[in-house]
């Protein structure tokens, strides 16, 4: 009873809260990093250096009036943010934060496929949110979003298959273990795949330069134009939780998950004093920083250019990478 129900439940509670708190602080981090990039200070008023802004923001969002447009489809309008957030959180069920079973909820043997398939459900929140608002800008944005997410999903999945070929396992723990045994992070084995997954990840999380579904200067806010208050904040949470998910995938697949750098080099063994989960979270934050950095730097793609990039560049390169990986796998 304790092992099967209480412990997993406790883990779920801790994990969910950790993710949600991480998201609020991620928002603060984004505001701060972008502010520094733009020679500003960012939030400074709430708490020392604006740290408590992470708490003030959610409180504000929760207290705001939750408006449902009269002509909106009420049920779908309410359901959409939930459908957007739930998959983003469900993914954490298989993310391993460390080597022991203590650090993860479950290690299923189709872990990677599980992540891919669950994130593919997240697109519903965006499409339905745009449709249910019964407004033109959100509808345009949600059509853009659905096309974008499906296209880039193909590229990312295709690329992940080449990593699966290298490891021979779909289990996330197994993939990290393979990197430990190989003594080399897959970032060095599969650099092309890393780039593809990262670019595809940017597109799948609707981050700049692929933030077309919510391009505020074109579509006034995208699919969540009509949302406010708590329901808006659910979309918001989902977006940032997805950022964490993509960073986690990149770290697990290519940067050795919880492993220290160059795990097999004895000279670097002293790095072992840092607990594995710190390595993991640290690497995730590194990638979140890159996400934010890119947002502060690059302009936005246009819709047709985005689709052209996805279909004419990323997918062919992903297939090529897959073929090359397969040939090398057989040849070596």
């Amino acid at each position: 009873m304790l092992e099967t129900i209480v412990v997993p439940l406790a883990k779920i509670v801790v994990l969910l809260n950790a993710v949600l708190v991480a998201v609020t602080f991620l928002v603060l981090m984004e505001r701060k990093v972008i502010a520094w990039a733009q020679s500003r200070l960012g939030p400074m008023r709430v708490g020392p250096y604006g740290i408590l802004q992470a708490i003030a923001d959610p409180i504000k969002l929760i207290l705001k009036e939750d408006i449902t447009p009269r002509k909106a489809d009420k049920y779908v309008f309410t359901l959409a943010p939930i459908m957007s957030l739930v998959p983003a959180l469900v993914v954490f069920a298989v993310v391993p934060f460390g080597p022991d079973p203590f650090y993860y909820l479950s290690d299923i043997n189709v872990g990677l496929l599980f992540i891919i398939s669950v994130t593919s459900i997240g697109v519903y929140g965006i499409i339905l949110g745009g449709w249910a608002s019964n407004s033109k800008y959100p509808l345009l944005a949600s059509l853009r979003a659905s096309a974008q997410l499906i296209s880039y999903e193909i590229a990312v999945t295709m690329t992940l298959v080449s990593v699966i070929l290298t490891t021979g396992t779909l289990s996330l723990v197994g993939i990290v273990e393979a990197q430990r045994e190989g003594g080399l992070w897959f970032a060095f084995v599969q650099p092309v795949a890393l780039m593809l997954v990262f670019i595809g990840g940017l597109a799948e999380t609707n981050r700049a330069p692929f933030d077309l579904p919510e391009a505020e200067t074109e579509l006034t806010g995208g699919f969540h134009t009509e949302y406010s208050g708590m329901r808006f904040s659910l979309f918001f949470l989902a977006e940032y939780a997805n950022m964490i998910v993509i960073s986690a995938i990149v770290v697990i697949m290519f940067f050795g998950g919880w492993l220290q750098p160059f795990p097999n080099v004895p000279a670097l063994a002293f790095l072992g004093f840092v607990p594995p989960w710190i390595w993991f979270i640290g690497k995730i934050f590194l990638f979140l920083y890159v996400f934010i950095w890119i947002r502060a730097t690059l302009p936005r793609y246009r819709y047709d250019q985005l689709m052209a990039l996805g279909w004419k560049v990323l997918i062919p390169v992903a297939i090529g990478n897959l073929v090359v990986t397969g040939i090398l796998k057989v040849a070596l």
Partner: protein
Amino acid sequence: MTLEAPRASTTQFDTDELVINMGPQHPSTHGVLRVVLKLDGERVIDADCVIGYIHRGIEKLSENRDWTQIILLTDRMDYVAAATNNLGYCQTVEKLMQIEVPRRARYLRTVLAELQRIASHCLWLGTHAMDIGAMTVLLYAFREREFVLDLFEEFCGARLTYNSMRIGGLPLDIPPGWDKKVLSFCDLMEGKLNDYETLLTNNRIWLKRTRDVGVISGDEAIGLGLCGPPLRGSGVPRDVRKDEPYAAYDELEFNVPLGTRGDTYDRYLIRMDEFRESIRLVRQAVEGIPEGPIMGKVPRLIKPPAGETYHAIESPKGELGYFIVSDGKSTNPYRFRVRPPSFCNLQGLKRLVTGHLVADVVALIGTIDIVLGEVDR
């Protein structure tokens, strides 16, 4: 006019035409412009500009103000380039009354006008880049614009609506040390321009978003009455500062940058070059400021002789012209009419956006650099 689609469309579904209102409440219509877009999927097949949301009747008001009070009203037209508006108006009245402006005043006017051009272009660059999604440039450009505003504040006490010129000269001389500050600003600005260009000029996404977007040939641009950078971007060498020099421009050296393709990227490059030319002009003008009075001989009561005149200057947005009729009897103009560059350039918007995608509309509104205060007056 039929247009070839610039790129193959991704959505070939024959959906219904979607009419969407861009504005007047929209983050990238630069104020209260309303564009009624007719869309086929994401492609614009027709666009109508609806203006007048910030119409204050400045032209009509002017007919009931006396000649010096109108300077205040001109501030409120292109509110991001108030000094240029003042300059255009004052010169028109001077032309009407045949007042000789002292050389020192002309040099100072040139400095102010070119500083104003830098400030206005900073605002254009920031908002244009923001529309295309490069948010950092906005903050950078506003930071530098702030220095220009500080200079203006030191000169005349105001930061936006300067009321900085008088008929016959300037209201007051520059404060001591101001010229040094202007020169050091020029040095700073040159470095910052390189920063902007690093972020944008060779950025592949920026190139993709601006190259071959909104291409317009020189003849067409003339036909539509475009002026300023949109006209020069199509390779038409028209710059009032060169063609009909005023203030001190005939005594200073500068080039008029021209585009070749007439697309958004060329217009961007031209404005970036204009930044540099403006800095060059400011340097020359500040270094060459002669000694002397700042006001010419102006009668106490300004009452131009009966007659009419048109005078144009090159504002940051394009050719800013004033047409004034005086009846010679009253202390206010009989007819006051402005040829606002933003308004004339806005005419080109429909031609520019047709056939492009929704995302290009914001880029094209940005590239023609309109200020709604000037469009509506």
